[in-house]
């Protein structure tokens, strides 16, 4: 698809929102109790256009914190199992490239040899309107991770802010193309504006070097700052470790199985029956998260498990800085 560019005004963007609302559950950045979150939007003016980052990422919709897998019912001679079928059509509206690219990473992890249908049933139905981010803050390092622009096939429509009232609109899929065409927007050859450069930087060379620095003493120092709260994994767009549990409903003849987010940072994460814990020391759990993101995911899926969104730094109670840690280790 040769790149076609359209000019879209804020009023036309509202029109797009109205149209999408008829077919989709529209999710966009909005202000809730003074913080920016992704949430369902009913009115266009609830949307916070000039946001930097939300607390949680789109995984809270596509890979929810607590998700029912199936229900069971004990009958006389068998157990009836009814699988959940989560089919909700989401339009993710005005999502920054880092978060959109994170979904491409989840796509690979969750569609390896085995396909996680709970994620993909929603993912396949969802529409993505990306909003390029031109500001960022001191925690952003998307440029270093190559995620400051949306990757190929990651969006339906890409919006690029020209000023407060006007955007470039670029289709990224047949669906996106149809949306823009139906709106009868004007074509334009205006250029993208330059985005503000990240102040936080990490080189790929450094990232590659952590593999050979497993025993570096700095790991211990850095891990000592960690309180094992797991906030970094909760807010991370690519952390999807989960636990599975069953619950009975009264009168104990039926119930359901569900999964919920878990975290490799927690000491009980590797506990098995008989009370054996395989990653007992905090430093090993702390390291594991780094190696998973920057070595293991890369080796297995040929993509880094980090998009440089900065959430793990922003939400860390001790402001442990993932970039500074790597810079210190490597």
């Amino acid at each position, binding site marked *: 698809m040769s790149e076609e560019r359209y000019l879209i005004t804020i009023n036309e963007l509202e029109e797009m929102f109205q149209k999408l609302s008829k077919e989709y559950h529209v999710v966009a950045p909005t202000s809730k109790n003074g913080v920016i979150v992704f949430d369902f939007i009913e009115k266009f003016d609830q949307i916070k256009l000039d946001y930097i980052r939300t607390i949680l990422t789109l995984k809270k919709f596509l890979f929810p914190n607590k998700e029912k897998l*199936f229900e069971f019912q004990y009958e006389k001679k068998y157990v009836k*199992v009814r699988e959940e079928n989560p089919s909700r059509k989401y339009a993710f509206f005005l999502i920054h490239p880092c978060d959109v690219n994170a979904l491409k990473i989840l796509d690979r992890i969750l569609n390896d040899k085995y396909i996680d*249908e709970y994620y993909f049933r929603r993912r396949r139905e969802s529409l993505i309107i990306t909003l390029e981010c031109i500001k960022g803050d001191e925690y952003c390092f998307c440029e270093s991770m190559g995620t400051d622009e949306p990757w190929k096939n990651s969006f339906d429509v890409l919006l690029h802010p020209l000023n407060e009232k006007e955007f470039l609109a670029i289709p990224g899929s047949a669906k996106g193309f149809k949306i823009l065409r139906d709106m009868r927007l004007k074509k334009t050859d205006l250029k993208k504006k330059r985005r503000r450069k990240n102040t936080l930087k990490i080189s790929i060379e450094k990232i590659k070097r952590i593999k050979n620095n497993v025993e570096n003493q700095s790991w211990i120092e850095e891990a000592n700052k960690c309180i094992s709260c797991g906030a970094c994994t909760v807010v991370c767009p690519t952390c999807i470790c*989960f636990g*599975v549990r*069953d619950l009975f409903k009264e009168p104990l003849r039926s119930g359901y199985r569900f999964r919920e987010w878990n975290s*490799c940072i927690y000491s009980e994460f590797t506990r098995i*029956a008989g009370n054996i814990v395989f990653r007992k020391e905090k430093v090993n759990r702390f390291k594991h998260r780094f*190696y998973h993101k920057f070595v293991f995911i890369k080796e297995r899926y040929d993509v880094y498990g980090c998009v440089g969104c900065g959430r793990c730094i922003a939400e860390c109670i001790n402001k442990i800085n993932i970039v500074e840690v790597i810079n210190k280790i490597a």
Partner: protein
Amino acid sequence: MHNSKSIYTPIPAKIIEIINEAPKVRTFKIRPAINHKFDFNPGQFIELSLYGYGEAPFAISSPKKILPEIEVTVKSVGRVTRALFKINRNSIVGMRGPYGNGFPIDKMKNKSILMVSGGTGLSPLRPLIWEIYDNRDNYEDVVLLYGAKTPNELLFRREYKEWERRINMHITVDYPDETWSGNVGVVTRLLDEVEIPRGSQTIVIICGPPIMMKYTILKLFELKFMKDQIFVSLERLMQCGVGKCGHCMLSNGKYVCIDGPIFRLDEIPLREVEL
């Protein structure tokens, strides 16, 4: 009927026999729902569900020849296993799998095989033992060393006589009772005391509790075995079984559930076997 699409949904199965193996250890014979194609390699595991209590991974402990029935041998140590000990014959459970890689049977052909096992670690080996038994000509010397705390805790005793016809089996217990006239001591002692195959044409397979694996490996190193001849079966929390939930990931990024549970010793960091 059950049209399962999700990788996390078990297929229904029925408990058709429960065998008391040892104190706190039982073997459950399971028959999957009719028309379900099920095959496995020795060393693979299943996820067994007891609806309402949860799901847990268990190595398949039965020989392939009893398919479509399979057995798992369970020690009552956790939530799911304790619940399993409360159910009866004909109870309905769920199963998913088989998962994991299984033993490297192709690489074992025409080699001598040394199996070292402790406690309930004999369960994953049982299908392998029968595989070797049934195709004995494919292998050179085959030795099985097995240790348990007490004679009571030795698993599958009803089959030893048969196995011994084709396999050199040596058993030891830590704490003998008045009926015991065999070896006494930890299983690693057998490595010094009995004749075992040696040299580069021997494959060693270890399956047992972490501490037993550790000392067995140390002993094998002493006996000049190389890492690339030694295979271990690792136990971790394989909760999803399909490389997603993250619990069983080793410190080198390998998933025990999809890359293991059988690893050649040079494929994993030694700290995963407590070294």
